[in-house]
């Protein structure tokens, strides 16, 4: 297939103008979380869901809230608690006494942006209901199936602390998130700015700067971003190294990896790299794009063994070892 990269570049130039405006709008409220904002944009463009992990108070919820305000789209928030039921998320059928009939009451999942706050605090059946909807992009209540509106983006948060009474997401379900973004503390200067903003009580208001139609159009262009065979091979090498490290001169990782990334891993890595290239206003993917997203895409897709846990080796260490070994095309 003949691809005209120059034409794609021109399209990107036209369709990516909103990125600066959206980032600017979000930066009015979110300080010092550039990577998180980029990841949210990748999720938005790549039609994938995002799992945000970080200690309390790092503006995870605020970031998602801000993004939904900056986009002219519907937003709903579900605070996951141990007593939450699937019907509280997806909706249920209630009896209408007036009409003497059952009617459907749609749940908060019927929105463009859904914030699943502290997803690991709800039991498995609620998590399953949400994750099934994320995968199928449709909900069945009673006998009626509803297709969820596009864009449909679930942003779930979880805390790495206070693990008592939580229900960790199983590997198979966590695989459905396109990205798992780990948020770190802001830098000193950034935190000073956050502190000043809060003390003065002057909070910037976020205005809607982009429409749903624009996002859908941008998605189509991001999907057109050219990915060369060499980059595809690079992605596959990384993925296969998580599965068969010994074949990539990484025999020392064999005992540390319980299971490698699934084909969803390679699909999402390619998709995220394309979106990253789009954000950087490039009509083609370069190895830097893959490297920029590889941690967020793979950190929740590599299972580590007890041996690795005992040696304090994390999936991030494994990814690091892999990308330091595989030759860049």
């Amino acid at each position: 297939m003949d691809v005209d990269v120059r034409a794609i570049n021109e399209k990107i130039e036209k369709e990516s103008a909103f990125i600066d405006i959206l980032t600017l709008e979000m930066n009015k409220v979110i300080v010092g979380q550039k990577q998180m904002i980029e990841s949210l944009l990748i999720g938005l463009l790549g039609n994938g869901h995002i799992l945000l992990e970080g200690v309390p108070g790092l503006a995870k919820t605020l970031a998602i809230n801000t993004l939904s305000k900056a986009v002219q789209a519907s937003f709903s928030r579900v605070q996951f608690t141990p007593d939450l039921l699937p019907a509280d998320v997806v909706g249920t059928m209630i009896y209408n006494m007036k009409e003497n009939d059952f009617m459907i009451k749609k749940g908060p999942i019927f929105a463009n942006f859904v914030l699943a706050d502290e997803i690991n605090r709800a039991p498995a059946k609620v998590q399953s209901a949400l994750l099934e909807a994320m995968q199928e992009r449709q909900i069945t209540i009673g006998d009626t199936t509803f297709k969820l509106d596009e864009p449909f983006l679930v942003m779930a948060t979880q805390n790495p602390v206070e693990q008592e009474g939580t229900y960790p997401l199983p590997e198979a379900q966590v695989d459905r998130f396109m990205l798992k973004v780990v948020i770190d503390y802001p830098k000193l200067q950034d935190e000073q700015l956050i502190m000043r903003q809060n003390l003065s009580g002057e909070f910037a208001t976020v205005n809607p700067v982009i429409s749903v139609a624009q996002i859908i159009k941008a998605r189509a262009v991001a999907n057109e971003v050219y990915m060369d065979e060499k980059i595809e091979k690079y992605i596959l090498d990384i993925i296969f190294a998580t599965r068969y490290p010994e074949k990539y001169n990484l025999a020392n990782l064999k005992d540390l990896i319980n299971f490698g990334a699934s084909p969803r891993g390679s699909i999402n890595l390619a998709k995220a790299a394309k979106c990253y290239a789009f954000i950087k206003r490039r009509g083609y993917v370069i190895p830097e794009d893959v490297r920029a997203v590889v941690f967020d895409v793979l950190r929740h897709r590599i299972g580590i063994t007890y041996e690795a846990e005992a040696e304090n080796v994390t999936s991030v260490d494994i990814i690091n070892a892999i990308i330091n070994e595989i030759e860049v095309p």
Partner: protein
Amino acid sequence: MVRAEIDTTNIRIGEQFQLKISVAEIENVIIPKISLIGLEIIDSTRTDTLKNSLIRRYILTGFDSGAFYIPQQQIFVKNQAFLTDSLLINVATIRIDTTKVKKFPIKTIQKEPYTFDDFSLYLYLLLAILAIVGFWIYWFVIRKRESEIEISTYKALPPYEEALLKLTALDEKLLWQNNKTKEYYSELTEIVRGYIERELKVPALEKTTDEVLEMINIFKKSDTVDTSKETIELLKDLFREADLVKFAKSKPLAIEIEDDRRDAEYIIGNLKPKTIIKEEEEDELE
């Protein structure tokens, strides 16, 4: 309906004669195995179907002298049994005048002469073993030695000479001249990266363009590398151009490719680690 005939009624011991059983029907006929006493079946033909009849022939013989009956044979035609006539056959001995016939001792077991087939299996096995051993020697010894020699030829050379040698080898391949610009730039950048890796003793092949440039800039700032800003800029341009060719289907002009080739040679000639002169040596120099 059924008939049994023999071509002779007298035979000598071991002589063969023919028994023919014919049936005047072709459909639904069963000819069971014939039963004989004192006679033996040497061979039999398959049932021959003619227009309105079936014929089956048997070659019989007898190895005892005397008169033998071929008993009535039961043939089934359309689920009905029919019997053939019984037949008499005389088996006569051969008279030998033992006073006149010369006697010979019993011969010992004679060996057959050897043929190719007697050894073919061993020959094929030997050839297969030789092929496996030959392949093993080639794959694990000769090939490995060749690659070691090849690697050691390069490794024995200093990084600069090695890179120059590789650049010359790349020129000889005439890749871009044959419309293989992508392969050309892949190899060109690999040579430059390989040079950086060996000369500066840092991993460069596993790093992206940005990472390599950042690393060189850090070295420059920390004054551990002997290079100019111009060389770093050239390296940046070369890598960027190569990225465009490799990943964005860019097709540079011949003059640009030649420029990049010259730049690559310039870079490897002007990017070296700084020589650290020990204090003692400095004193000696003074």
